[in-house]
């Protein structure tokens, strides 16, 4: 419902932080940023309220205030109610946190009280805990949560009920649930619709929210021409292969595995870990490298980050400076007889006329070509140190022997402390702080993308 507004706000914050730089971001964000984490619906509610208090909104939607007052209500009692339900989940999470455990908690709640007392608080608590159980992208679990609502009680029975905001607290809770679905970019299904109709009726706020989601999400689902799968390959080699082909954007480019990851134990008992090294090079790059002037050095640069949803990987480039104009090799002179006019053997590739294209038919537009250095190859490795990367370079020499004569300069920045792979999904607490900073607006981004 308020996704566009939400987005707008995030962009504003983004602008400000970008403008002010990272240190400031840390200062500003704790105030606003925690609102964005998908688990904290109450904060969202609070924010919304202040937003809607603006004159424009109140005039346009007068019944809004009442609605928001209702939202206010649970927040006043939230401490008490939430703790109890949080407790329920925390107790369940103590042993293991899986989808089954989560479902078990919901079942326990359903059975505990036939009247489902406190279900709104329970749902809020459950929504907040979903990422912990790893079920935040599972529509079946959301449906199960919706199922916690008692049926038919909140369906307006007459026109007066329909006109005013019937059971605003429950409706708001339903909307929040749908909003979380929206933020994670998953598409509700027919079951959701049936449940909403049973709980709130055909023309309720949650139903509208559902309809709006269903209007936009299918249209946006394939908006990204370069989708990243939600579950990245676990094997670092596969992940590197995926990332490299993603950056290379040349269907002819070939990935070569220069070294598989392995761990050896030497005679002295030292553990020697050999990191994986994968490189990618297209035939064009190879032929360009073969033409490289051996007097000029090539550079190994990196690491550069590549974000794949919440995972960051790093890659390295084999680069050269732009070729100075005086060194540019003149195009190989093809015998004019072979490509000239009036020959049928190979088709004529030019005509000898003193006529240019007419302005009216010149559909090209001015493009300012900026000369960049040539990128000859790319690589990803388990470690970003010079020793590992020189192994890559020597591997490249097998296909491009000229590389042996070219001086190679390593221009490595202090590498990432640790290359992240999906195996790091369970982050250590120290890392978490750092990563949180980065992923703050990640769900929203994926929402736009999806």
């Amino acid at each position, binding site marked *: 419902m308020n996704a566009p507004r939400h987005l707008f706000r995030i962009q504003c914050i983004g602008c400000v932080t970008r403008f002010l730089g990272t240190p400031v971001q840390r200062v500003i964000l704790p105030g606003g940023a925690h609102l964005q984490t998908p688990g904290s619906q109450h904060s969202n509610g609070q924010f919304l309220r202040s937003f809607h208090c603006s004159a424009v909104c109140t005039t346009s939607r007068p019944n809004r205030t009442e609605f928001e007052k209702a939202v206010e209500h649970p927040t006043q009692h939230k401490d008490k109610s939430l703790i109890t339900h949080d407790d329920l989940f925390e107790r369940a999470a103590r042993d293991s946190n899986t989808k089954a455990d989560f479902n078990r908690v919901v079942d326990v709640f359903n059975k505990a009280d036939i009247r489902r007392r406190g279900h709104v608080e329970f749902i809020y608590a459950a929504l907040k805990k979903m990422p912990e159980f790893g079920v935040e992208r599972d529509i079946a679990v959301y449906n199960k949560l919706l199922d916690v609502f008692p049926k038919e009680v909140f369906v307006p029975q007459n026109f007066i009920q329909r006109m005013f905001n019937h059971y605003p607290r429950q409706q708001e809770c339903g909307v929040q649930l749908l909003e979380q679905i929206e933020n994670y970019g998953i598409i509700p299904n027919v079951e959701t619709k049936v449940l909403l109709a049973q709980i709130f009726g055909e023309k309720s706020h949650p139903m509208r929210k559902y309809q709006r989601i269903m209007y936009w*999400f299918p249209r946006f689902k394939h908006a990204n021409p370069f989708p990243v799968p939600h579950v990245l390959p676990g094997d670092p080699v596969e992940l590197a292969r995926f990332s490299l082909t993603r950056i290379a954007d040349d269907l002819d480019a070939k990935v070569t595995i220069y070294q598989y990851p392995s761990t050896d134990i030497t005679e002295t008992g030292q553990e020697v870990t050999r990191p994986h090294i994968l490189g990618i090079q297209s035939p064009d790059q190879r032929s360009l490298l073969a033409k490289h002037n051996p007097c000029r050095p090539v550079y190994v640069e990196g690491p550069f980050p590549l974000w794949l949803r919440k995972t960051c990987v790093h890659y390295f480039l084999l680069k050269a400076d732009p070729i100075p104009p005086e060194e540019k090799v003149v195009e190989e002179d093809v015998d004019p007889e*072979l*490509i000239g006019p009036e020959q*049928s053997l190979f088709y004529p590739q030019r005509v*000898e006329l003193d006529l240019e294209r007419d302005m009216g038919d010149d559909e090209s537009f001015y493009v300012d070509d900026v000369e960049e250095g040539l990128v000859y190859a790319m690589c990803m490795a388990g470690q970003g140190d010079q020793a590992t990367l020189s192994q890559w370079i020597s591997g490249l020499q097998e296909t491009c022997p000229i590389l042996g004569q070219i001086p190679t300069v390593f221009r490595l920045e202090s590498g990432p402390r640790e290359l992240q792979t999906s195996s790091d999904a369970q982050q250590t607490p120290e890392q978490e702080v750092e990563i949180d900073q980065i992923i703050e607006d990640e769900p929203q981004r994926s929402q736009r993308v999806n």
Partner: protein
Amino acid sequence: MGLNKLTLLTSTVRLGRNVFAGRFAKTGDCLHRFQSRRSVRSSARSLAYAKDLFLGKVNKAEVFPYPEISNEELEEMNQLVQPVEKFFSEDVDSKKIDHEAVIPPETLKGLKELGLFGIQIPEEYGGLGLSNTMYARLGEITSLDAAIAVTLAAHQAIGLKGILIAGNEAQKAKYLPKLATGEHVAAFCLTEPGSGSDAASIQTRATLTEDGKHFLLNGTKFWISNGGWADIMTVFARTEVVDKDGQKKDKITAFIVERAFGGITSGKPEDKLGIRGSNTCEVLFEDTKVPIENVIGEVGGGFKVAMNILNNGRFSMGSAGAGMIKKLIELTSEYAGTRKQFNRSLSEFGMIQDKFATMALNAFVMESMAYLTAGMMDRPGVPDCSLEAAMVKVFSSEGSWICVSEALQVLGGLGFTKNYPYERYLRDCRILQIFEGTNEILRMYIALTGMQYAGKILTGKIKEMKRGNVGVVFEILGKKLKDSVGTVDFGLTGKDGLVHPSLTESAKMFEQNAGFFGSTVESLLYRYGKTIVEEQLVLKKVADVLINLYAMTAVLSRTSRSISIGLRNHDHEVLLTNTFCKDAHFKNNFLLTQLQKNSPENNDANIKKIAQEVLAKRAYVCSHPLDRTF
């Protein structure tokens, strides 16, 4: 024909025979005199029919009246044709050749005895010494077995043609007699693994030995017809040549290479879709020592030789295609007449009739184009008919494919089985669009050569126009106004018209198209200038229009002659001509309309975009129609 035209012709072509004189030719030996003279390059003719169409001119003298041969030649040819026809119908087992992928030695021996290995080799070297027209006539029969036709063509239309048109006397005397009898078989080695249509990539290299008497040939040639058993090969290789500025440059040189020179290995014959009986394989040259006397023409002049060989060999595909279609008509019409469905024979159904009409029209047009071109080539001088020959090739290769497919369709499921020859014809016929220059390349050649020719003449005018010269602009506007009011008149019809009155309507359509074409070419040159090279979709349309125009010319000319001299069934020819011309007229109109600026009929931009998107993904782009998003 007007007296003035006759004098015009005699002034341009003094030597030997011309078509007009052909009718009055008293003796046949005039032909042979001409044949032996052909190798002597006399002044090139200035006339060119197809190129002039680009300027909106119809060079009537080139194509009217339709070329004929003398009675003696006709008689000689009929004597020759009969045994060949008999041989092909009795002794050639095409099914077996196709199945076993080899032409049996007895068949080859028979072909050699008939002299079919030296059709165009002059009699003094032991060949038949026939003209292009006669060669085309024989092509009609040899095409009944595509494998044999290709084998013969690889031998003499390209394989030994180099020696014939550019070789010196010593080379001719040394090689031609054995080639004429078929004792030696020739092959033409140009294509390479890396060079299909890419000029720069011929890698085979010939290096001069230290004593300066030999070239050492090294490289690989691909898809060489007769490559497995040819004794004499025309090989094209890079050689280092010092040009005028004293710089060393790589130029292509043509060599006569005997298998006996050593260092030549042939690969395994390719397993092909069609023409399976012909031998196609890879040929490897390893330090093959070629004496310097075996250079054809001069060192570095090989590319011109290759072009001349290929340009002039293409016309015969028209008669070959026509020969094949005529045969198919005979075969399928018998079936259509006897097969009953719903108590009616197939021949009574409109859709089946449509197929026969298509076949007859195509055969008729191909034949007309092929013999018109052959006749032009047989005229004295060194006629440049490469454009016309290329058009014949494109038209007939595509027409044959359609006709064979239609013939197969008449038989339905039966045509699809190996019990009938149609599937073999279909497979064989597919190669026509590929070899001797793919149709795409030839279309580029046709369109660009014409554009170049017209561009040279029109550049000045267009520049004046662009500069805003009021006089020129008014002149053009006036011309356009005149064109829109009155019909274009090239003098084909009317009192002194060259076209028979029964074809007036068709001739008018042709004239209108030709006029429109001329102005379109001018506007294309105005719009694109030299960047026209990049506009392949435009060029394709230009080439298609030109091919249609040439085809219309050929049928108009041929039928006019047929009516005038009262050939049998000329009324059917009139019918075919009028049908074809009407059809071609509207096709041309559509194509020419597409070529106008901002034409709503033109879909080129979209076509390009579709292709780009598909090619960027290298796959079909759309999602499956059954896919869902939720």
